[in-house]
């Protein structure tokens, strides 16, 4: 029963969503739209599970004085202050940014921290490129040559050296690069159809476990 009910729900929902993709029938569309609404409601409820999980883990770490428990205190405090400020602003002014505390946290902590993480990416690209572009064999040598040509074609110095570099860079990007990408996309798309059908038909049931 533990496997049959989820399997039945998966098949029912899968069939209706597939039917909605193909059929113009309004009744099918109505059922599928209703299912989508249910999914949104379930996701909304599931957020409570996530919050409960993070609370439980952090409190346990603080109470048991696990390593780095101080970070958990900061996490819980930040969570509580931001939530209270946001909910209060929304309740009073109908807008989360209607509160100075929330606005301050958003623009002076949340936003710069996110931007910092994203900014780190440029340094990681440099370190990853350094490792990837070492010509250890023919394949990596080819990749290195292609990368040098593309980079030369994309920067002003390459264009100043010769007209050939931008043309060559474009050719590499449009012909071999696109061909490779399309091959991967086609394979992956067929894979998506295969996985989707296997899940809907109940052939793929690894995620249910408990056999």
């Amino acid at each position: 029963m533990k496997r049959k009910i989820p399997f039945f729900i998966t098949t029912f929902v899968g069939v209706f969503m597939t039917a909605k993709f193909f059929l113009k029938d309004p009744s099918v569309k109505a059922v599928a739209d209703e299912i989508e609404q249910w999914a949104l409601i379930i996701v909304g409820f599931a957020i409570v599970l996530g919050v409960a999980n993070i609370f439980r883990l952090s409190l346990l770490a603080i109470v048991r004085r696990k390593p780095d428990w101080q970070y958990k205190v900061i996490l819980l405090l930040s969570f509580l202050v931001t939530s209270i400020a946001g909910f209060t602003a929304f309740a009073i002014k109908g807008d989360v940014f209607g509160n100075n505390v929330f606005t301050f946290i958003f623009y002076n902590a949340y936003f710069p921290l996110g931007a910092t993480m994203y900014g780190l990416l440029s340094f990681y690209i440099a370190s990853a490129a350094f490792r990837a572009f070492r010509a250890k064999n023919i394949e990596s040598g080819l990749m290195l040559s292609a990368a040098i040509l593309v980079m030369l074609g994309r920067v002003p110095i390459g264009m100043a050296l010769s007209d050939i570099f931008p043309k060559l860079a474009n050719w590499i990007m449009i012909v071999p690069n696109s061909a490779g990408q399309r091959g991967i996309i086609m394979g992956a798309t067929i894979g998506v159809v295969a996985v989707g059908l296997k899940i809907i038909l109940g052939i793929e049931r690894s995620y249910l476990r408990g056999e």
Partner: protein
Amino acid sequence: MKFFSRAHFVVEMFFIVQEFLRQISIKKILCRAWETRSSVKGMLSFFSRIWNYLIEKSDSIFYSDRLSVLLYICAFMLMFFLLLRHARKGKKLFFRQIPGLKALDEAIGRATEMGKPVLYVPGIDGVDEIQTLASLNILPYVAEKTAQYQIPLVVPTRDSVVLSICEEIVRQSYILAGKTEYFDRNNVRYLTDEQFAFTAAVGGIMLREKPATNIYLGSFYSESLILAETGFASGSIQIAGTATIAQLPFFIAACDYTIIGEEFYAASAYLSQEPSLLAGIKAADFLKIFLLLIFIISICVAVFSPEFLKFITLIF
């Protein structure tokens, strides 16, 4: 005696084929094809008219521009059931080795030897993303292995629905492995919904808990390289798998093994070796060969007959 009768048969066949080739030369075939070009043209325009008529009539019932998708699905289903019958008869289906999946056992083994945890990131999307579902199909295999070897499996999630599913999968896998006492629900964690906060939190886990093996399977965006580089810096063996084209180069550059595109969707079948799942992979392979043949034939014929090209464009 048997040998002589076979040799006689071969010689006889040789003469028959030689005579056949003499009578119907390639030149003659090409001339005949050129002569019948106009009738082929007529036939194609006739089929085009029938196709258009069918689409016109069915337009009120279903989206006719999506008919090609339905055709692919039907072709896939047909091939799938044929191959499933074949596989259930006990006949072996050939699959090439996928190094990234073969390395899973090796990576978990390494974590066991070092007595350190395995980190499994099931992507950053929700369950409405097929890559997450594909990842959740691989998670039971990894969880069962870690349960057998009695090492912790840390699963950080960005989505609370994925959290619930992962928790259940890991629990069931530990039960199936008979190691319920080693299941720690605190290791399946919800971190945050925010993309870069999640990235920072996973990076923190890598640097503080020092997992020996990092497995990234699912849908990833710009955080892929940050995760993979942090994992590299912490000295972990890393296996990544995604069908997000833009992130593949980053994983290839920073991880030890990368499972690319379709390999990722085939992973669950490859690991379980179940005939029904393997038949699905083989059917997808045949569908790819079929599409490739259509491309090649279309290119060749389109050069000679623009009508055929029109017909193909109409269907696909």
